[in-house]
């Protein structure tokens, strides 16, 4: 029942997104523009060979992080701003709201990654030595970012007036997975799977598990407020 309701929330958000025509092509164009900007300024040939994996990994996650920041808070903030949150609160079980929004954010981030990552690799001639590790880092990093931003978005939407709180809350929450993901990506780019790479994956995994569980449990209190 919770799952069905979560699916309804997910479908509703998808539909709204589709109707306002934000849609895929805007996202595509945007990702592409940013990559061209980065490529233009850094270019694959303008750096010494040894620095490339470091710089490229950071740039990749900055782009992903930026997309997350712009897109992922919208769905909750929108419910509050347009005043639909009250109706949702009266009608839907809180767990289903959280799951639905998390699903939506995962889908959004998934699409962004599916577009940005291959383009980035191709345009920057960024070679990956350990694709398995790279994919694991992407997936786990994505889940972590999505879970944390969903929860933070729920809090922000309530404290629109006291946004300062949000800044303080969000920064430490999002940094661990980002740093781990960047490290993991650097390792994946340079060498075969190694102990350090596994460490990054393990860290991300632990973070994801904790974050999803904690935010699921805490969501009720935030949402009902």
């Amino acid at each position, binding site marked *: 029942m919770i799952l069905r309701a979560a699916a309804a929330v997910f479908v509703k958000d998808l539909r709204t997104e589709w109707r306002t025509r934000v849609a895929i092509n805007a996202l595509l164009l945007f990702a592409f523009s940013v990559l061209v900007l980065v490529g*233009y300024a850094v270019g694959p040939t303008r750096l010494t060979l040894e620095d490339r994996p470091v710089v490229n990994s950071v740039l990749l996650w900055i782009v992903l992080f930026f997309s997350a920041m712009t897109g992922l808070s919208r769905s909750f903030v929108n419910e509050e701003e347009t005043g639909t949150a009250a109706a949702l609160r009266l009608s839907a079980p809180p767990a289903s709201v959280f799951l639905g929004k998390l699903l939506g954010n995962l889908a959004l981030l998934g699409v962004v990654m599916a577009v940005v990552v291959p383009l980035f690799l191709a345009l920057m001639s960024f070679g990956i030595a350990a694709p398995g590790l790279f994919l694991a880092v992407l997936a786990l990093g994505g889940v972590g970012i999505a879970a944390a931003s969903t929860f933070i978005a729920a809090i922000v939407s309530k404290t629109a007036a006291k946004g300062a709180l949000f800044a303080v809350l969000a920064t430490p929450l999002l940094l661990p997975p980002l740093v781990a993901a960047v490290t993991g990506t650097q390792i994946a780019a340079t060498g075969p799977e190694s102990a350090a790479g596994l460490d990054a994956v393990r860290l991300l995994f632990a973070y994801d598990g904790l974050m999803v569980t904690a935010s699921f449990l805490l969501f009720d209190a935030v949402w009902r407020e």
Partner: protein
Amino acid sequence: MQVLGTAGKVVLGLGMAVVLWAAFLYAHPAESFVGESSRIVFFHVPTAWISALAFLLAAIHSGLYLKTRKMERDDAAAAAARLGILFCVLATVTGSLFAKVMWNSYWNWDPRQTSIVLLLLVYGAYLGLRQAIEEPERRATLSAAYALIAFVSVPFLMFAVPRMYASLHPDTVINARGRIEMSPDIKLVFFSSMIAFTALFAWMYALDVKATRLVRRLSERTGGFEA
């Protein structure tokens, strides 16, 4: 009403055929180029020139739309931007092939390559904007404003920014020395090709404007931006 009569079509077709023949069989390969690769200049440069022409047309019609508020101007601007993108892609592809032969890589972030991609992005964004607005008058006004503001940045993209980085790309027609070296036969084919492509573009453009207008009239009649 027909955009181009039968005679016109025959002339255009024959002209294109002659240019094609001359490009591959009449002109000699230029010196300083690898192998036969210089022949691609006969297609590469006209497509680049036409995309610039098309974007200029888009800007002019956009300005006229804001002045006259005639929807026909909007149709013309949209058609010009679409065709501009098409020819811009062709210039990029031919340039890319050229680059593979001359510089040994399809894509190497040469400023010339990048700036043309940026042009593609600007006008891609223009089409994206059009698609995002349902109401015709609003779409026309907003996209005209964007086309004009974008056109302000185009000279920077085309001329100023590429100069900030060293480029391998040959100088353009508008260069410091006035004229570049071309043997007479190449010059003849080159300018014939320019004329033929421009005529081709003029025909395509007229067709596209007409089609756009018809589609708009049709959608005005059946409506349909409610849902």
